[in-house]
């Protein structure tokens, strides 16, 4: 594995394509909030958020804000890229696990189980994107 220090650098982030279903999610990221889906029929939280609960298939799904706290489930630093970057899955304090990037740190210090907190990064011509940095 990689040794030494690999400082996270800014890279061009592809804009998330927005559709009528995901518009509220990206309206919220523009305001600095990360939303997840919560089913009021079965009580299960889910991610990525959608308008039907993937567990009980009820359409009684609400948008809920996350606390912004999570832990790293797994990660990988892509070395063969114009700028090295760290992709990861972070398990939110609210339960669901989401794909993200770990940013603003030494990428060689990232570890599974590490506590992380929410930040937002601008995308290339689109809504801000939720990412995480060591807490």
């Amino acid at each position, binding site marked *: 594995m990689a040794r030494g220090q690999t400082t996270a650098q800014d890279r061009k982030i592809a804009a998330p394509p927005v559709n009528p279903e995901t518009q509220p999610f990206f309206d919220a990221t523009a305001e600095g909030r990360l939303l997840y889906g919560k089913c009021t029929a079965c009580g299960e939280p889910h991610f990525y958020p959608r308008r039907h609960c993937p567990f009980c298939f009820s359409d009684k799904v609400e948008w809920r804000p996350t606390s912004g706290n999570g832990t790293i489930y*797994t990660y990988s630093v892509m070395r063969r890229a114009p700028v090295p970057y760290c992709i990861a899955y972070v398990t939110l304090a609210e339960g*669901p696990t989401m794909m993200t*990037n770990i940013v603003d740190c030494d990428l060689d210090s990232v570890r599974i189980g590490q506590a992380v907190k929410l930040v937002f990064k601008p995308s290339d011509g689109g809504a801000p994107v939720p990412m995480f940095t060591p807490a």
Partner: protein
Amino acid sequence: MSIRDKAYIVGIYEHPTRMATDKSLMQLHAEVAQGALEDAGLTKNDIDGYFCAAGDTPGLGPISAADYLGLKLRHMDSTDTGGSSYLLQVGHAAEAIALGKCSIALITLAGRPRAEGMATGTAPRAPGVPMPETPFELPYAPATANMYAMAAMRHMHQYGTTSEQLAWVKVAASEHAQHNPHAMLQNVVTVEEVVSSPMIADPLHRLDCCVISDGGGAIIIAKPEIAKSLKRPLVKILGAGEAPKHQMGGKVDLTYSGAVWSGPAAFAEAGVTPADIKYASIYDSFTITVVMQIEDLGFCEKGQGGKFVSDGNLISGVGKLPFNTDGGGLCNNHPSNRGGLTKVLEAVRQLRGEAHPKVQVKNCDLAVAHGTGGSLGTRHAAATVILERG
């Protein structure tokens, strides 16, 4: 109702090219179809069922391909689950034959990512039409290598799997590939060479990754009466299983694959167990792919795959589970970035006794071919096929 004993693989062909700058995509499809027909002793007009994957066959499903190839069909299917498509289609073709929907089915795969200069594993790919997950994944630059790498990282964390153990998968593939004159990589490598090759996406090194190659292959499947009238050694389809595995609404667990469902379904239909298997073709997009699938198919306990593949246990004539004796995707080829079809080809060669003598498994009467299409790191479809000699 079962597909057991209802269909036989009667023709196979693997395109020898690994760099097809001088050929069109459909030309490659036609060449592999022609090769498999010659192997079977059949002609194009005998084909009444055609299977291809939408992702490597241009046009609306199979329509343009049927036109180009001049096929008159009464059954067609272009289910696309990425690299595992062709393993699913072996099962689907057997189903169609069992139901009388066709008598002789052709499956083709072709591609030329190398000629097109594609950075298959390391460049994130934006879909032409966004998928529902795209807004929540594309910004993070998921490529292929870093997705499988995240599965490997978690497997290492949870089960203590090491880079050296993963490297043994590549070592075994290279031991086999030295006997395949068509293989892209014919040099035998060591564990040390694998773990000291450049890091691509932690913890996967360059030699943990499969090759990028052009080429393709074809399979012809026929009903028993026809199969028994032909002159080639008989290879019977005993069972098949398929299953998607995804993120389960955020209950993400990257330590296992859809083989936990497709494998038992295929083994149950075949009426055999992993202990009965003499040869295994296991999709080897990356070394971790093999370790996880071997565990999930039941060849060892969950989490013990790293130990299982070590010390040459996958090398023909040396270990307990000879695998990918053509060199697999890690050394031989990975046409169209899809490794499922070639897994069937080498399993058929082994059952016919037509593998290279240096890697031919003795008394090889039962084989499994298994693959994962999509990504271990996000969502994929697993497919398992059990084949028997005679």
